[in-house]
């Protein structure tokens, strides 16, 4: 029982990271109808940036500042590489984001260096013991951070003029323009938000371990999350992220009992298997709109 709960809690922590990443994907998808494959790179550069900033500024300031810098980079990328392509086929734009991803990743990766770098988080691999259940502090932190960010996002989309305009533009771009909504601002805001979310996710993904060049692979796990939750649903991103995180942790934990002869841990496959199963029943994801365009 304790082992099960331990796995669930670690899954929720990891799932919170997926949630943050998936929210970025969904926000961009809703505003532009495009999946941005640049998210993993923004995630990695966020973690690397924070590893440089936190020794000087302290961890918390570094996280916020790092998030803002990555958001600014995303803003520039959107303006230079994506905006001129608006109106072209979504496939073309998706490929451009892959190019952006590789460029950003190579540039950022050059700063990882040979020495182990840490993001300077206060948790490391420390655990709290709740009646025999081992809960890693970094997982609790990731979960709390994700909860706060989701609440802020909900308030943003509900109450602020730009948040409301973004929802309107997602539903009907031309009608939103007729109301005077500047669609360019909507695109830019969505990219900046996605960049910020990716950077925060990167910090939590890197917490506890030294940075390595392959951190961005965590970002790919957000893909089954958004497919599972529904491409155009923020709620789907939250639920999907947590579900995938928990399933992955459970499979990883019980892998050796079920497949004692298999060297590779099946935990990494679990998200994709869950995604396939859900798609068989609901092709548009758990919370997605039925007529969502395929990319």
């Amino acid at each position, binding site marked *: 029982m304790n082992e099960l709960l331990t796995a669930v809690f670690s899954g929720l922590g990891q799932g919170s990271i997926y949630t943050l990443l998936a929210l970025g994907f969904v926000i961009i998808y809703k505003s532009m109808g495009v999946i941005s494959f640049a998210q993993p790179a923004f995630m990695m550069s966020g973690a690397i940036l924070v590893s440089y900033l936190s020794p000087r500024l302290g961890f918390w300031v570094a996280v916020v500042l790092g998030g803002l810098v990555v958001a600014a980079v995303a803003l520039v990328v959107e303006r230079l590489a994506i905006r001129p392509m608006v109106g072209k086929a979504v496939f073309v734009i998706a490929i451009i984001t892959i190019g952006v991803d590789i460029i950003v990743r190579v540039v950022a990766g050059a700063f990882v260096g040979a020495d182990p770098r840490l993001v300077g988080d206060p948790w490391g691999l420390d655990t709290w013991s709740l009646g025999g259940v081992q809960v890693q502090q970094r997982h609790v932190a990731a979960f709390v951070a994700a909860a706060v960010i989701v609440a802020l996002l909900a308030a943003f989309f509900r109450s602020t*003029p730009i948040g409301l305009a973004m929802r*309107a533009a997602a539903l009907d771009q031309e009608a939103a*323009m*007729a109301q005077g909504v*500047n669609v360019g601002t909507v695109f830019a805001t969505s990219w900046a938000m996605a960049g910020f979310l990716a950077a925060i996710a990167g910090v939590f993904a890197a917490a506890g371990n030294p940075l390595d060049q392959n951190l961005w692979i965590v970002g790919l796990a957000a893909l089954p999350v958004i497919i599972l939750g529904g491409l155009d649903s923020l709620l789907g991103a939250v639920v999907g992220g947590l579900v995938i995180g928990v399933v992955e942790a459970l499979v990883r934990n019980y892998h050796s009992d079920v497949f004692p002869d298999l060297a590779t841990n099946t935990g990494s496959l679990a998200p994709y298997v869950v995604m396939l199963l859900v798609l068989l029943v609901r092709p548009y994801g758990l919370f997605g709109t039925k007529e969502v365009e395929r990319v």
Partner: protein
Amino acid sequence: MLSVQNLEVVYDDVVLALRGVSLEIPDDRIVALLGANGAGKSTLLRALSGMLDIHDGDVRKGDVTLDGTSVARLSATAMAGRGIKHVLEGRRVFRELSVEENLRVGAHVARKDLRANLVRVYDLFPRLVERKDQLAGFLSGGEQQMLAIGRALMSGPRYLLLDEPSLGLAPMVVAQIRDIIAEINHQGTGVLLVEQNATMALQIAHHGYVMETGRVVMDRPAAELLADDDIREFYLGLGAEGERTSYRDVKHYRRRKRWAS
């Protein structure tokens, strides 16, 4: 006054949609714009509201002027900010937002007057008050049209460009919408009313234009248009003697008369 002079609009660098259109919308007037499908009515509205570029349309010649200054190159956002609001054909409410959220989006360029405009719109459309927390997609067609018009009014525009507000609505509802348009105009908003339902449009309009294949072919006070024989025959469905023509009789010879040739 909002006006266009000798406007030529080309789509995709190839399709000539407007071939030198001139038209004036005086403040506080209702101007009706009639014409068959493909005559260029919606294109003209897009040119007036800055929405041409997203349809790959381009102004080749002529100009759009607001109080004498050219506004032909301005974006949709800038035009909305200058008080020109376009109500798109087919209502286009934000289906998954509530009625009140739809209205709040409509106030995007006039945030500080949101309260006052909300009161005004709810006064004009009491039906929307009852449904303000419902999703707009669940409203009836007539209510959605009211919402679309109310949404445009939320920024207190000087000019309202209405693209076929009677589209797909029952005759009773059309009459309701007609009266509301007259009331909006009475409150001091200039209206350009694009309609296929010529009877409805000419009942409330002060002035009317008829378009055909990208040109204005008639430009007269609405009362004169109502009395014009050709208009009566082609747009109001009345025979030359003023009696309703049976569709069977029309079919026999299917005269296609054009003013422009």
